[in-house]
């Protein structure tokens, strides 16, 4: 039994997915919209990064399915008392969990006391221990969970790791083969081509859609994920942090925060930037002056201070009304949403400026003049002639901002005005790890994990958006490639 909880950001994430789905449906029914996406499908880099992005998205969505589990209320008499008191028969746990938490339960619950290195069996620092026979000694204590099943870690450790790894790799290969088979059957273009031929074509990279790239990326992903999953049963794959939490768990939980900040913020800022930028460029005159003054002023206020002020005001307000937030998660979530909002308000100026310049250029073009000669209304010209022609600028800027926003969150969390301290994010991870960089020996794994995961998200998003931009630009059609040409006569001679 559980009580589903829809947090604000969950709702917006699902809305975003629904809109994307609706657009995909719309595009699939219109040939001229489908054609550029088909070009995206043909790009190996785009397809590979799409697989990685999809994996991240899956984690993010799983982490967005929130609920409160039921807790045992106790004896029947207690239950009767509750009923009498007007309360429901079922009681719900105070903490909100997500589907991902359930999947990663073993990582979440097995907490060590403090730092431990990746795959370690002993703690990272020496502790003073009471010897059974009295007296004390300073040594590295065994971890409570990491490698706890080993009787003699010094001898058994490497063998155990190797065994688990091999098992993981074998399983990964099995899963990969199964997925490959399913994929090949599902996407086989026409039924006349037999499956062997299609597999052969895929292997040689001769298919229309680069399935080979997809399968290779999927394979690499599985080869990393499945052994890691197996290892996580007995070890902390990426070590533990200061309070003994599993770093892999933290990294996976941070994905949702990063995706939410990266997407919702741009979603909030887009209407401002697009509308105001296009208006400034198209109407010129006093509208332009007003919008320019607005964003110049906003730009000259130090962003961090503005955000800090807003967040602090919000914090005070939230503390004054605790009844609005039944759980800590809901409070943290509201703060995240507010952070997206305020980041959106402060970050629209860059795109707005870009779009103003682009619109200034476009409005002088002949086709806009021709539309004006038809007496087409200004809004219609903006929607039909300007907007589609600045779409690539928006697309690129959104993806570039994505990484910038994920980083901005880290900075803000450091100042203490970012996400709620209880919220797991790359920002809080980096912030916590930052202090340990000066330690000797260095605690590197928290920072490295956050770095690696963020790099992967941003890089795949960048590669994907590059392909999308190229596909949507009608002028780019030639793919440069270096081959030596051979003349007919020379060919005949050979």
């Amino acid at each position, binding site marked *: 039994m559980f009580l589903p909880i829809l947090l604000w950001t969950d709702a917006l994430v699902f809305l975003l997915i629904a809109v994307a789905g609706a657009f995909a449906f719309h595009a699939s029914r219109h040939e001229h919209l489908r054609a550029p996406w088909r070009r995206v499908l043909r790009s190996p880099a785009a397809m590979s990064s799409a697989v990685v992005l999809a994996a991240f998205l899956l984690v993010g969505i799983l982490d967005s399915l929130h609920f409160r589990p039921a807790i045992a209320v106790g004896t029947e008499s207690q239950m009767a008392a509750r009923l009498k008191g007007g309360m429901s028969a079922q009681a719900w746990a105070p903490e909100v969990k997500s589907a991902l938490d359930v999947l990663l339960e073993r990582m979440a619950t097995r907490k060590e006391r403090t730092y431990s290195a990746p795959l370690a069996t002993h703690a990272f620092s020496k502790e003073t221990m009471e010897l059974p026979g009295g007296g004390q000694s300073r040594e590295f204590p065994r971890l409570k969970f990491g490698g706890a099943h080993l009787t003699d870690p010094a001898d058994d450790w490497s063998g155990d790791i190797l065994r688990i790894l091999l098992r993981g790799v074998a399983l990964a290969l099995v899963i990969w083969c199964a997925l490959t088979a399913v994929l090949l059957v599902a996407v086989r273009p026409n039924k006349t081509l037999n499956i062997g031929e299609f597999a052969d074509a895929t292997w040689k990279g001769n298919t229309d859609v680069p399935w080979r790239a997809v399968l290779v990326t999927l394979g690499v992903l599985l080869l990393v994920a499945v052994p890691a999953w197996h290892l996580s049963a007995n070890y902390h794959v990426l070590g533990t942090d200061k309070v003994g939490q599993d770093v892999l768990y933290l990294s996976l939980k941070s994905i949702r925060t990063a995706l939410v900040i990266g997407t919702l913020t741009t979603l909030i800022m887009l209407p401002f930037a697009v509308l105001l930028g296009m208006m400034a460029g198209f109407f010129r005159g006093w509208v332009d002056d007003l919008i320019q003054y607005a964003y110049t002023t906003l730009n000259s206020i130090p962003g961090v201070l503005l955000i800090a002020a807003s967040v602090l005001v919000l914090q005070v307000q939230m503390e004054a009304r605790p009844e609005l937030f039944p759980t800590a998660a809901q409070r943290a979530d509201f703060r995240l949403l507010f952070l997206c909002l305020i980041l959106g308000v402060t970050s629209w100026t860059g795109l707005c400026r870009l779009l103003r310049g682009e619109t200034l250029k476009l409005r002088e073009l*002949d086709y806009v003049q021709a*539309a004006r000669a038809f007496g087409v209304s200004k809004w219609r010209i903006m929607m039909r002639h300007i907007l*589609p*022609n600045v779409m690539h600028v928006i697309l690129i800027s959104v993806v570039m901002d994505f990484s910038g926003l994920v980083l901005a969150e880290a900075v803000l969390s450091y100042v203490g005005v970012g996400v709620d301290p209880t919220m797991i994010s790359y920002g809080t991870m980096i912030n916590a790890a930052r202090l340990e960089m000066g330690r000797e020996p260095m605690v590197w794994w928290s920072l490295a994990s956050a770095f690696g995961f963020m790099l992967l998200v941003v890089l795949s998003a960048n590669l994907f958006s590059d392909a999308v931009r190229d596909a949507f630009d009608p002028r780019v059609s030639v793919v440069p490639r270096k081959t030596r040409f051979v003349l007919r006569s020379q060919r005949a001679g050979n």
Partner: protein
Amino acid sequence: MSEVLLSVKDLRAWIDAGAEPLRAVDGIDFDIRRGETFAVVGESGSGKSMTALSILRLLPEAAQIVSGSVMLDGRELMGLPESEMRDVRGKRIAMIFQEPGTSLNPVMTVGAQIREVLARHLHITGTDAARRVVQLLEAVGLPSPAHRAAEYPFQLSGGMKQRVMIAMALAAEPDLLIADEPTTALDVTIQAQVLDLLQDLQRQRGMAILLITHDLGIVSDMAHRVAVMYAGRLMEVADRARFFGAPGHPYSRKLFESLPGAARRGGELAVIPGQVPALTEDFRRCRFVDRCGAAMPVCREGEPAMTELAAGHSVRCVRASDLATTDGAAIGHRSAAELGHEPPLVALLKVSGLKVHFPIRKGVLRRTVGQVKAVDGIALNIPAGRTLALVGESGCGKTTAGKAIIQLIDPTGGRVELDGIALNELRGETLRRSRRDYQIVFQDPYASLNPRMRVGDILAEGQLALGDSRDPAVVAGRSAELLRQVGMAEESLGRYPHEFSGGQRQRIAIARALAVRPKLLVCDEPTSALDVSVQAQILNLLKKLQRELNLSYLFITHNISVVEYIAHEVAVMYLGRIVERGTVAEVLGAPAHPYTRALIAAVPRIDAAGARPVVRLEGELPSPVNPPEGCHFHPRCPQVRNECRSKYPEAVALSETRTVHCWLHGV
């Protein structure tokens, strides 16, 4: 003089473009002798520029030279190591480009850029170099050269920049100068100056010139020998006299026939049907066969070899010799059929005192400190079904005038009357409704269609805004009808503009303008971005539409031969004002204003080569911010008098249809 300087054999340069290579240059052979001008003519995309770049081995990344040899003075250039090739470039072979604006480094002074060449190739530095720079700038006719050498490119006008480019090219005294469309970006009067300069320099220094151009007029003026290039191959090589007297290849003949001009008024221009074949094809037939009127089955059986018709005249055509004997009169003698009945001459458009001034604002408070008088009081009338050509050099305000007439720019003063309604007084919804009566066709067919809209949507836009019906079926039907009207297939409705060639795009742009059934069409240089054969198609189309729909055209152009072909009346603009106006025969036959005379004389022509009067204008168009006192033209006028300097001349009527603003025709 007849010693061969550069010899090109079987040169092929291909571009990597997906599955099949693009055979941009596909096996060409020619020789250039010392001191001669060898012109390569061809339409855009025929591989002219690629040929020049191949000779210098300066091809873009995606292209490569597949085979061939280029011998300079008996030395093979293709096998030379890059370091030695750098000594050839600039020192033995120099090149000047089409766009002087982008060929000079904007952050280096002109002198420094020339000194770089001197130091690299002749090892001249210091004061010697400075002296050489001044000499060179003097040689290319730049006024006050010592002063100019210290200036930056942005301080020079287009014509002056091209002179600097020529000075740079000449710095190391090359044996061969490659001029790739050297005057295409310049106005006719400036073009005439630059071409004269090139000829003078060639006479003095005896260097050879490889002239690449699309303009047969320039070829006729400049060239000793001519090569015609088509789809990567040379189709004909001949002496100038021979080429213009008796062109051998059907393609060359068609090119001549598609040239507009006075002789073809009333008739249709010859068009070359179809399009240039895709260069990805590995041709095993004559590459012109699909468009050739004289094609025979044998033409498809293999690519014809060069046939020598006479000494120094060879043609790549199997029928060259029998075609040459059958008709010598193929070019230029189509009888000028008389115009049909004269339509009644009620003025449809009446413009009087039209002014467009742009304020120049400065400072924090954006105060107006001056006016750019782009259009400064022009008057013109166009009767229904007639064409008025507005002629002038760039910057004279002709496009601004056109846009002000159709109310895309608010006029500062004056009156624009269409069918008795004063357009400049209309506002809001009435102005919007009136827009169906006047439309515009732009110069650049690549910028005038929204790349993100399908042709169907482009054609529907005007109908939805102003048309009779918004019913999708009616709109779609009308769009299809429009496409048929401009000679295009209905299937084009679902396609995007980038799938069409320049000529097809211009047809779409014309169809878009016609969608609301206008009475007046402003054509803003509709053919200047197109090749000659495509231009002929568009001009034919415009004439046909005028006949069928009784359209009036305001035809804005700088091309005199187009005016001769299409216009009934002509108005010549200089610095925001009309200096002369009248029928085409009057104005172009016997120009009264010195500017008109100079303008007409500056146009290179293929017919009366050498016989035309030489009126060369000095200097360039003054700025419209601060026009000269008195007659605007007096600083450049060869017949300037005292009164010209003090007072702008009033209009003088020379005949019923003709007025001129000039003191020479004083009262």
